[in-house]
């Protein structure tokens, strides 16, 4: 039970018939075609697919960094317009500001909040503790390992108490041991905060380990090929037959057979 949980708003995300193209050499290049996806409050949904299938682009549309698309993206029934604090994002690179300490980086998410300072300080502290970085408040990003920096980035995205957390290959740049460890940490944070999560990854194993549902996309142009419910209880055993079966199903869909 955390202090953050009590406030965590519930979020339903509806992606309705979203298409997007870039213009390359004056010709439109479709990157997303007719994407439709509904995400329930508290759900953990992963998107997997080969590079170039537009999965990261889709996340950028949801977070509001790119408004140039067709179709609709609704959060709790309202069309999203630009970035907002009810949507947090963690990028593949941690993107912490190198000139700010861990706590100052995380406090950025509370900028302009009119709550009293001690409340804000406590929220920063709570989120540092949540990601297991207590004791590193005054450290600068270059003094952290890749895994620790990514934890700080997760704390920065959670400090705004987002209804939905978007993860863009958040563990993609980490070594396999750190990655396995942070997968468990992500699971713990998700269960503790009950935040809705959409994670883009190219690691099928990671997707099956964490998600309620796995969206399989195919490239050129990016389309949804299938949505695979995982349906296993946590904690999941990677060596189990059921785990292997779900993983096999996703891999089959990915290879397009």
């Amino acid at each position: 039970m955390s202090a953050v949980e009590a406030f965590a708003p519930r979020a339903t995300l509806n992606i309705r018939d979203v298409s997007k193209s870039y213009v390359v050499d004056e010709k439109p290049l479709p990157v997303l075609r007719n994407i439709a996806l509904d995400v329930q409050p508290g759900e953990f949904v992963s998107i997997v697919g080969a590079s170039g299938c537009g999965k990261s682009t889709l996340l950028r549309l949801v977070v509001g960094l790119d408004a140039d698309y067709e179709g609709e993206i609704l959060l709790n029934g309202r069309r999203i317009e630009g970035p907002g604090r009810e949507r947090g994002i963690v990028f593949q690179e941690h993107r912490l500001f190198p000139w700010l300490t861990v706590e100052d980086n995380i406090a950025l998410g509370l900028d302009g909040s009119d709550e009293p300072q001690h409340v804000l300080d406590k929220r920063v502290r709570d989120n540092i503790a949540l990601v297991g970085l207590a004791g590193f408040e005054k450290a600068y990003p270059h003094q952290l390992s890749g895994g620790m920096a990514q934890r700080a980035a997760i704390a920065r995205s959670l400090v705004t108490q987002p209804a939905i957390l978007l993860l863009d290959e958040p563990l993609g740049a980490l070594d396999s041991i750190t990655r396995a460890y942070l997968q468990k940490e992500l699971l713990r944070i998700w269960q503790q905060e009950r935040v809705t999560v959409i994670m883009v990854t190219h690691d099928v194993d990671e997707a099956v380990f964490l998600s309620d549902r796995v969206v399989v996309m195919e490239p050129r142009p990016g389309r949804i090929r299938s949505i695979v419910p995982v349906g296993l209880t946590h904690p999941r055993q990677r060596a189990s037959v059921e785990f292997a079966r779900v993983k096999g199903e996703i891999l089959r869909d990915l290879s397009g057979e």
Partner: protein
Amino acid sequence: MTRLAVPLVLPVAVLLLWQITAARGWLSPQTLPAPALVLSTLIDLIRDGEIATNLQISLRRILVGLAIGTSLGLFAGALLGVSRRMNDYFGPIINALSQIPSLGWVPILILIFGLDETVKYLIIAKACFVPTVLATSQGIRNIPRAYIEVGQVLGLRRRTTLTKLIVPAALPTIFGGIRLALSNAWVALIVVEMLAATEGVGYMMVWGRTLFQVDIVIAGMIVIGVIGLAMDSGLARVERRMRRWEPKNV
């Protein structure tokens, strides 16, 4: 120890060569006086207050010009860096004006202002403005897109975006521009004092040359070198202080 000694190797070698040249009479004393003579001239100039008086006047010109030039440069550079439209309007004209050497402005400014102090301030300010405005706008425009996006996603206020993102991210480039501005200021100062002044370190050097007293010219060069180096390392120290967050071992 070696770190302190290494920068001295070249000056000592030059000094030795200079001493040998003077002692062997390779160049006439009117062209290149011996180091000992220059040193005693320097001491005389310091003792009778000649240097102090001229340096005070020159430093005042440098500081006023630098203050005007860099603050206008920071302001204009920030506008050009932040606003694409401003850059479209004013970028090319500032670029064109900056191609004209500071020296090129001297004749017309003398016609307008006479031999007034204003001319010196304006020339030095112009010399400082150019590198500052270019470095500031470039420093801001080159802020990684990744950081800008973080600012957007976190919904940072304008003021926070300025103080926690734009300024720290652009600071290294801006400081490079300001240090270049300082060295430009010295160039402009000496040129303008040689052309259009009756006092100052630059004037002192012109005066020494017309008297064929090259020792005074070299003494002036030494003074400028020492003061310039001191001001630049002062700036470098301020910069280090503002960039304390950086890893120490690079």
